Each structure stands twice: as structure tokens, then as C-alpha cells.
């Protein structure tokens, strides 16, 4: 008995010493127990009047989160009325309901410590409401009221318009905003994707426009609810039915998507800002989610500039050369129409042209030589092993499911995601890099000290246009 104990003690000590003397293994040679991955279940419902509902309970905290999506948004704003959907969002958020003045509604929400926000994006309005469990009943009643019977209080609606006008006045405060405005206009001229609200469009909008837009888009058939938190599913369904079950829809809006225009001729645009750093934005048209190469494109972007320190842009331009703090690429697939492929970064003025040249070379390199097997495997492992984080947060799980269905992704999108990533080969990478990345088609916007930029561009015999900031 005693011997055994002593023996164990010695073994234990030895183990300790071994463990501490030198890490015999590199951290990446450790082995790990398998991770069980379960797709969280979400309960889905549809009401008689056509509203879609996605629910998931998690009562660890006494909070309820609601996200509503409503089909509509800036893509449907007629040219000349650019800004209408943003205005509608703000007018809903601040304009009260037929039953409650803005002040009364706000008072009630603030007393509950509820958070309400309404925003608009390309294809949808989004309403977020976060509320304490104890206030859920009343909050649902107020929310339904807001959807169905907004007041559009004249003073508040005017205030909301003024706020958008202030954004126009401040549109040149940040170089990144200037760059994205010019890039969007070059790639999608005269299209909702390529225009921003102006003083003209904003001042010409009327309250009638608001009311009409609300009637057109806020129809039960176009409304999707994602709710999570400390909920009882039956209770939620009962509340939705009580407050919105008798809501009858009218004629739906026109959801025709305006066709994308031809881009302007790619060129380098220089905009003068007397600052110590140039903001660069480069881009051309990208893809939509219906593209069969969706996953391969995602991977190519990871390798190029979407994978943080594991991407080539970051490695070369930041880590090896110290030319930038932030440099990345993005190839976010459009939900319906193709959106943009961009490369974005900032560097000292006298480094900007070099960074432009490097970005083009790095893209070209990926097209010509593709990726090595180890590089591809590393990227695949990252996408596959981090997939679990798509399901970490309950509300994100619910809204993800809702979003995928709202935008008509394939039903098995999540279930087959890993398989699709696993199947990708180095040949796919090279093919897709060649098909979707066109360094000679890049529109390039440089916002910085034009004196330095101009000299460097001329030295490199690069053609550019110096434009006056609007």
C-alpha cells in the first residue's frame, strides 16, 4: 500500500516535471476530444394572414429579443425619391402610433427600459425590440400597433427628415464614407445601389410618400418575426394572433428589382483631403447568392483578404511591410442582385500607390498560381471548425434561420454548408479567382493628399482623374 502510494507520487512528480520542463508538443499538435455539433431546432409557424414566425426559447436571462423583417427597402426607392425607405424607418421609429403620441410611446418604452430601433437596408426593413420579460405583453401590443397604425406625427417626421439632411451635410467628414460613395456611383451609376440621398431628394419627399410606402410594404404577408429569449411559445403565438391576427393585407407592393447598369470605365479617382493618410477603396461588381460558385468565392476571399492575418493582403501589406493597420477584401454575395467585391485600407500618403500596385499583384498572383493545398486546407479548417459559432447566440440562430428563408436560400443551406466547403479543390480556387477577380477592372478611389498622390501616380505613369469633392 505504502509502496504504491510512493510510486504514484513519483510518477506524479515526473509528470509534473515533464510537463513543465519543456512543452514537448507544439500547441497545434495537441489532440482534442470530438465536438458534438447539433443543429439547434427552431420552431416555425405561419399565421392565417401570412406572417412567418420563428421562435427559440432561452430563459437564462429575463430578456426577450424580437427582430422583424419586412420586405421593402432602398432597392425599391424610385430614383428621385432616394432616401424614402430610410425616412420611413426613422419615421416609424419616432413618429408614434394612432393611439399614442410619440412622447407617450417613448415614455412607455423608456419606462420599460425597452430598446426599439427601425432600420432599412437594400431589401428589407428591420425592426428590433429588446424588452424585459415582465413587459412582453404590453411591448407586443405596442409593436403591433406601430406596424399597423403608425401616426407619422408631423413634427417628428420632419425631425426625422432633418436628421437625414444632417447626414448629407456630414457625408464628407470621414474619408471612408467619401470613398464608398464614389466607388458605388462608379460601379452602379444611376441605380439604387449607386446613389445616396441628396438634399434635393430628401426635401422633395412628402408625408404622402411615407404613408404610401408604409401601405405598400407593411402587409402581413411580407412580415417575418424572429423571437428568442425568456418566452413561452404558445404565449407568443397567442399574443401575435391577438394583436395582428385580424390584420388583413391589401395589394402588395411592386417588388420588381431595377436591373443593374453597366459600370463606368474603370479608372483611378483621386479626391483631395489634406490628411496624413490616404484611404483607398478598390472594387468591381461581385456575385449574388444564386451563384453556383458561392462557397468557392467565399474561400477565395478568405485567402485574399477576408481571413484577417491568415489572408495574403494582411500578410504582405501589413505584417511584412508595415504599410497599413487595416487592409482587407470583401466579397459579400448579394441577396438577389450581385453586390460588390472590394479591397479597403488606409496607408500613409506616400505609400498609397505602392499599396495599389501590391493589391493588384496579390490578386493577379492568386489568379495565376492559385493556392497551395496547405493554404486551402488551412482556410477550409477555419471555416469548418468555426461553423459552430453560427449557433452560439440564441437570437442569432433564430434570425439566421429567418434570414435564410426570407432571402430564399436553399432549404438545406446550413446543413450542406460544411460538405460544400470540404469539397472545394485547388482547381476550384484558381478557376474562381480567374472568373471573379479582375484586377484590370478595378475602380480605384483614393482619398488623401492629392499633391503626393498625383506625383506618385505620374511617376508610375498611371492614368487618373482628380475630382472635386461634391
Amino acid at each position: 500500500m505504502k509502496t504504491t502510494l510512493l510510486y504514484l507520487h513519483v510518477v506524479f512528480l515526473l509528470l509534473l516535471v515533464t510537463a513543465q520542463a519543456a512543452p514537448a508538443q507544439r500547441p497545434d499538435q495537441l489532440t482534442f476530444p470530438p465536438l458534438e455539433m447539433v443543429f439547434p431546432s427552431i420552431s416555425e409557424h405561419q399565421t392565417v394572414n401570412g406572417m412567418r414566425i420563428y421562435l427559440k426559447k432561452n430563459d437564462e436571462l429575463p430578456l426577450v429579443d424580437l427582430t422583424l423583417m419586412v420586405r421593402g427597402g432602398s432597392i425599391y426607392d424610385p430614383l428621385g425619391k432616394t432616401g424614402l425607405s430610410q425616412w420611413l424607418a426613422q419615421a416609424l421609429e419616432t413618429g408614434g402610433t394612432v393611439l399614442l403620441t410619440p412622447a407617450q410611446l417613448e415614455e412607455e418604452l423608456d419606462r420599460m427600459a425597452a430598446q426599439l430601433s427601425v432600420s432599412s437596408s437594400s431589401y428589407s426593413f428591420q425592426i428590433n425590440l429588446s424588452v424585459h420579460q415582465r413587459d412582453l405583453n404590453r411591448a407586443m401590443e405596442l409593436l403591433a400597433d406601430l406596424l399597423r397604425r403608425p401616426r407619422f406625427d408631423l413634427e417628428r417626421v420632419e425631425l426625422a427628415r432633418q436628421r437625414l439632411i444632417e447626414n448629407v451635410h456630414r457625408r464628407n467628414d470621414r474619408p471612408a464614407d467619401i470613398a464608398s460613395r464614389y466607388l458605388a456611383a462608379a460601379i452602379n451609376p444611376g441605380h439604387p445601389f449607386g446613389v445616396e440621398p441628396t438634399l434635393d431628394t430628401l426635401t422633395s419627399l412628402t408625408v404622402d410618400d411615407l404613408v404610401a410606402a408604409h401601405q405598400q410594404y407593411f402587409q402581413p404577408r411580407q412580415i417575418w418575426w424572429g423571437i428568442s429569449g425568456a418566452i413561452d411559445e404558445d404565449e407568443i403565438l397567442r399574443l401575435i394572433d391577438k394583436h395582428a391576427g385580424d390584420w388583413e393585407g391589401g395589394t402588395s407592393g411592386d417588388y420588381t428589382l431595377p436591373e443593374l447598369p453597366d459600370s463606368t470605365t474603370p479608372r483611378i479617382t483621386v479626391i483631395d483631403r489634406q490628411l496624413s493618410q490616404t484611404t483607398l477603396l478598390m472594387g468591381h461588381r461581385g456575385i449574388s447568392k444564386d451563384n453556383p460558385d458561392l462557397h468557392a468565392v467565399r474561400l477565395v476571399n478568405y485567402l485574399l483578404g477576408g481571413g484577417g492575418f491568415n489572408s495574403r493582403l494582411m500578410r504582405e501589406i501589413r505584417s511584412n511591410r508595415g504599410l497599413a493597420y487595416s487592409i482587407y477584401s470583401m466579397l459579400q454575395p448579394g441577396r438577389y442582385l450581385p453586390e460588390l467585391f472590394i479591397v479597403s485600407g488606409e496607408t500613409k500618403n506616400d505609400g498609397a500607390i505602392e499599396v495599389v500596385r501590391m493589391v493588384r499583384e496579390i490578386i493577379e498572383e492568386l489568379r495565376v498560381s492559385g493556392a497551395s493545398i496547405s493554404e486551402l486546407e488551412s482556410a477550409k479548417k477555419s471555416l469548418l471548425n468555426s461553423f459552430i459559432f453560427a449557433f452560439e447566440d440564441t437570437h442569432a440562430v433564430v434570425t439566421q434561420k429567418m434570414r435564410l428563408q426570407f432571402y430564399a436560400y436553399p432549404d438545406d443551406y446550413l446543413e450542406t454548408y460544411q460538405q460544400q466547403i470540404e469539397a472545394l479543390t485547388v482547381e476550384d480556387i484558381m478557376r474562381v479567382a480567374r472568373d471573379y477577380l479582375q484586377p484590370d477592372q478595378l475602380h480605384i478611389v483614393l482619398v488623401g493628399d492629392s499633391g503626393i498622390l498625383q506625383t506618385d501616380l505620374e511617376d508610375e505613369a498611371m492614368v487618373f482623374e482628380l475630382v472635386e469633392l461634391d
Partner: protein
Amino acid sequence: MYRRLLVFIVFIFFCLLLSPAIALAGGLADRVQEHQLENGLTVLLVERHSSPTVAAYISFRVGAVNEDSQQRGIAHMLEHMLFKGTTTLGTRDFEAELPLLQQIEEAGAKIDHLRRQADVDTDELERLRARLHQLQFEHRELVVKDEFSRIYAEQGGVGFNAFTSKDQTSYLINLPANKLELWAAIESDRLRNAVFREFFTERDVVQEERRRAVDINPGGKLYENMLATAFQVHPYRHPILGWDSDIQGFSLPAMREFFADYYAPVNMIITLVGAFQSADALALIEHYFGDLPSGVKVPAVTDREPKQRGERRIHVNFDAQPRMMVAYHKPTVPHPDDYAFDLLATALSHGRTSRLYQALVVEQQLVTDVGVFRAPGSRYDNLLVFSLLPRRDVALKDVKTALEAELQRLLSEPLTAEEIDKARRQITTSLLRGMRTNSGLARMLSTYQIIGDWQYLIEYEDRLDAVNPADITRIVTTYLHKDNRTLATLSRGGEQ
């Protein structure tokens, strides 16, 4: 550290959240396990099995506030350098690399020395720069780029990052729950065997970071000027990244010294939130971190900000629409007035019915946005800051006058019990919201532990309850007066 943009904005976010959590007292607080290893390392664990993931924070009670004038910005630079690998990670052959690293260090130090001479020998400087470039080029062959990042990413890690604030430096990652040992192995390796490679290149990265956060960003520029004016003595006045001219002065020996002095278990807090068994996690931490030498505590900052005697003004000429910040000195936790300030700030600016939003945005329509927050840290006496974006054609001085009138109104029409109650509810509910994610909860706990003790969270509700309308009036009279104020404005051309 990729997204560790705008360190100070993150900090503002902290400050907003800083008013702690009621529900914690009833719920999650029971689930926080606190341990202290023999070497002084503090460990906070919260088991949460809703998803097979873990958020891991390692925080050091050292930040920009602990720098002296010879080393401003060094805490942040060190944070960058700790992403460069160890003697085994990030290198193809450390033995072969070492002599090159030494030559690079010598060449770089010579250049730095030469640059500081009154009569710079430019030819010599050019020769040395060419040599440094050549050495760096050769060195690259031996480096495995950003290997921490690659290993974590391949194993499914997300949000691998770090941030430096005035009060602390933190290193964070979210991992699938089965990879906790990977975290312990990598993080303990970087504490033991860090190699500061690619130092001179990284200085340039930080220079670009500063340009991005301050030089081209009107909000950042104004904030920096405001702090440097409100504080004359206390190190809270200095930017976290250092001043522009500080950055090219960072040296490797200073970096090593700062690392050796302060990155020790007595100044260190590990916070894990997620799916693990606490006993296992603790054993793992003990195994990987338990034998680190305890070290000495970071000395307290002894600089005292003298009482402000008279308003200070600063104007920044910047090619952007006008903006304004107004700051008042105030005490920090655990001073009882700090709790009253939480309620006051919330009643003034949280939500659409808050006093300033109502008065300045809705009724008088002078500004588009108004925010009230604490800055720039919480370990030492800090500021209550009002941030205002005037509408076009509204003069900054009119915004200032309107703000003054609202502060005056706090005396003629004190906050009512209802307003205070509403503010209390808003504070506690937003804290709950901050706890929804593993990383949110981990950040909250580690931040409180840095400032003092995470258990503040538990007493917090009672402390808020103890604040009455008379306390609010008292802090307004005591602190929010002109002599204690810094007025910082930004616009094109001169002060409006």
C-alpha cells in the same frame, strides 16, 4: 488586434456598460467561481452550457495609465508584439533566427539613435536603412507568419484579438469548447517564451493605426485634444497609442522591460465563460499557468491631477462639420458619487425621453446627437463627458449655452424619483443585455476585476438604490460647474 481599432471607442463602450448588473446579483453571480492560484493569478469561471463554445479573456492590470513620459504608447505596442510568436511558434528555426534578430535590433537601434542627433549624417542613415531592409528581408525566410492566428483559426477560433485601454490590456478568443487546452498552451507559451520579431515593421503599423484613429477621424482628434486639455498632470491625458512622435521612439529593451515587469500572475486575471467543467478548467489553468513566477504588482499611479481652477478651452481646426465635447472632472468608483453619476448620465442621455435628447434634439433642435459617458478610464478619477453634434448652421456657442441651461435646470427642476427609477431600470436592463453572449459576460467580469473586484456587480443594485434626488443635485452643484469644465470644439477654421 485586427479589429482593435479605436481603442478609446471600445473604452467608451465599457464606460457605458460600466454601471453594473442587478440581475447578476440574483442569477449569474451565484455562478461566478473565483479562484486564486498560489502565484497570485486570479481566475473567474462561469459555466454556461447553452452552446459548446468558450470565451477566454486574459487581462493584465496594466495599461496606458501606467506609462511614464519615456514610454508613452508602450503598453499598446507591447500588445502588438505579443502576436509575433514564441521560440517555437512563428519560426522555422529559432536557433538560426536569433543572430538575425540581434542584427536587426542593432541596426534599428542605430538608426533610431542617429535620427535623434542634431546633425544627422543622412548618408549613414540611408546606408543603415538599406542594411535593415536587407536583414528584414532575410529574416522573413525564417518566419512563419502570424502562426498564433493560423492555429487558432484552423481550430475554429473566432474573435482572436486584444485591446489596450488606459486601465488594462486584454487578450481574447472564442473557441469551440473542446479546444480549451489549445488556448492554455498557446497563451502560456506566449507569456513564457514570447519573441518580439518584426518590431520595426510593427512600429509602422502602429503609426498607421494612429493616423487612422486620430488624424483622419474628427471624433478621434477631438477626443484626444479634450483629454490632453482636461488632464494636465495625470497620465490619463496621454493617448493610448502614444503621441505621433512617441511611436518611432519605441525600443525593444523598453518593451522587454515593460513585459517582464508587469505581465505577471499578480497582475493577471483569467476569465472563462462557456461550456466546460469548472474543476477541469481550473486544473488546466493550474497546469499551464500555475508555475509562472508571481511577479510584483504594478505600482499605483502617484500623479495627482490638481483641482481645476477655471474653464479650459481647446479648438481643433479640422476639415469636417462642427462637433463639441464638454468634460467635467469627477471621482471614480468606489466613491459613492460615482453611482449618482451613473444615474445622472442615464437620465440625461439614455433613450428618447432623456432630458438632453428631449431638450436639445426634439424641442430646440440644436443637435442631432447627444451622448453622456465616463472617460477615459475608471481606475483613477475620471471625467463626465458630454458629446454633441450640432445641426448645420447652429453655432457651437449656442449648443454650449443650451447645455448649460439644461444642467442649471437640474437644480431648478431636480430629477424626480420617477426619472431616477427609470434610469435605474435602464442601467440594469442594459447590463443584462451585455451578458447575453459568453464574450460579453467575460468582458464585463474581467473589466470589473481590473477596476477593483467583480463583486462590485453584486453590491451595485443596492448602491444605486441608495442614491436619492438630493444626491443628484449635490453632484451637479459640486462638479458640473464652469471652473471644473473643459470645452473642446472642432470645426473648419476658427472657433465659432
